[in-house]
């Protein structure tokens, strides 16, 4: 079984995002970019399934600008076998990404897609669900545990009140939550090896996908900032302030 893992190049999670002065977006030029952390978890899970003999091949795909090839090389250093870069503008919308992935699916015929549950830039949490819808496949989102057996994938999902176990027929789409696994660090020899792994480059238009945005960004603004309050010296003082100043207890 082949597994396809889409990966996104995003502002590194350690960098505090800065809103552009003209309010058109968040600054991404001259900022450290990395693989979306949830996508690292997805890559790790796919590689583990290959190591267990469940998967035969792991293909990583990124849809974005040329520099996304670095993200794909990172995924291959973690153990993915080959990569497909689909060139488009930076950070296309989930609907367009899902359509590109559907076209990739028709070419590659995977048994499973594993995606990160959300990208930490636009926080959409939508692409996996949308891809599953377009393909007419089942979906196991927010996965904390994944077991593939007998033509099905059993997914333990993180839900609001606890966890939920579902069983989905293959082919299927799974989205990775935080605790699915701890992604490995790529070793230097594997980083070197990844440079020689195959990478195919396509243009979104070649796949016949309309990448036009449906959402226009009117403005991007900083949220109101909270001011630091006061440090109090004792529990007694805290209780007094909560009672009489904040009037919250």
């Amino acid at each position, binding site marked *: 079984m082949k597994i396809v893992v889409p990966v996104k190049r995003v502002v590194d999670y350690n960098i505090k995002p800065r809103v552009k002065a003209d309010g058109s977006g968040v600054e991404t030029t001259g900022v450290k970019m990395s693989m979306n952390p949830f996508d690292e978890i997805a890559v790790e899970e796919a590689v583990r399934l290959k190591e267990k003999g469940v998967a035969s091949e792991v293909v990583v795909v990124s849809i974005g600008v040329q520099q996304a090839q670095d993200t794909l090389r990172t995924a291959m250093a973690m153990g993915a076998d080959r990569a497909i870069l689909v060139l488009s503008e930076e950070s296309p919308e989930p609907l367009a990404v*899902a359509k590109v992935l559907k076209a990739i699916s028709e070419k590659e015929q995977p048994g499973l897609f594993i995606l990160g549950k959300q990208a930490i830039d636009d926080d959409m949490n939508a692409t996996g669900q949308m891809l599953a819808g377009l393909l007419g496949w089942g979906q196991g989102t927010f996965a904390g545990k994944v077991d593939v057996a007998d033509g099905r994938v059993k997914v333990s*999902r*993180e*839900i609001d009140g606890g966890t939920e176990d579902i069983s*989905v027929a293959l082919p299927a789409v799974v989205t990775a939550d935080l605790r699915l696994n701890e992604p490995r660090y790529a070793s230097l020899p594997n980083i070197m090896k990844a440079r020689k792994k195959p990478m195919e480059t396509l243009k979104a238009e070649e796949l016949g996908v309309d990448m036009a945005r449906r959402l226009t960004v009117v403005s991007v603004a900083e949220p109101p900032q909270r001011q630091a309050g006061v440090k109090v010296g004792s529990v007694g003082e805290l209780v007094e302030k909560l009672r009489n100043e904040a009037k919250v207890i």
Partner: protein
Amino acid sequence: MTALVLLDHEEGRIRKSALSAVTAASQLGDVHVLVAGDAAVAQVAAAIPGVTKVLHAADAQYAHELAEPLAALIVSLAGNYDHIFAAASAVGKNVLPRAAALLDVQPIPDVVSIVDANTFVRPIYAGNALATVRSSDAKKVLTVRGSAFDAAPAEGGSASIETVAPAANLNVSEFVAVHLSDSERPELESARVVVSGGRGLQSEEKFHILEPLADKLGAAIGASRAAVDSGFVPNEFQVGQTGKIVAPELYLAFGISGAIQHLAGMKDSRVIVAVNKDPEAPIFQVADYGIVGDLFEIVPALTEALN
């Protein structure tokens, strides 16, 4: 204009954030709601003021709010509506994007403010920026952040209840089991007070030190990602960018350093109290009241002081 709101529910109760979605939808016009499964919930939904019709999906395939049948059902009903809403809950986030894709619509997740029928505000980058976006899609498919809108009241309405015909089901997924944490405490997302613990609690056993305090305050218990990753408490306790987003009247953070992704989940709380032994912890930059010290002394003392 009429909006359809998916009302998700758990153990016979409508999720509070789904009631917030009703409030959001009612800003645009008439509201119909969709209840999948539990007939008793459909009855409860009929009493929500502002709701004019309850669509009840009674068929057994909808009992567990699985994404595939529920998204197909929403698509089958979508023709009558300009806007389709759900809470940004586990169910809403699972189902609505799938329905949106089937409708060829780009969904708008986590809406915190409605500017007009086409224009919405949503946080991006873990709440470090607020984006105002305008949709060119004919239908809008949105999820609503519960902490940004008041919950619709439970009583006062008298909507009609209509049973809807099932839509074609792909039969590709099956519910196996659900494991909910037993708790007599209020729901984390709707509690007036939240008592939260981080890595500073040190272990699963020691985390229990927060319980008497939470009991005294009638509070829900939350946790940072570090505490969940360390196994002190299960995932459903997590407050943050990828966990629950809360905005209680009072949020007490014990042994939580205040990583950006945690702050994203609680910085809209009205009053924040932080207790940490590190005076430089970033949590103090958002706290109204801070105490630098040992939480294992401060928590029992605070519990005692509230007697």
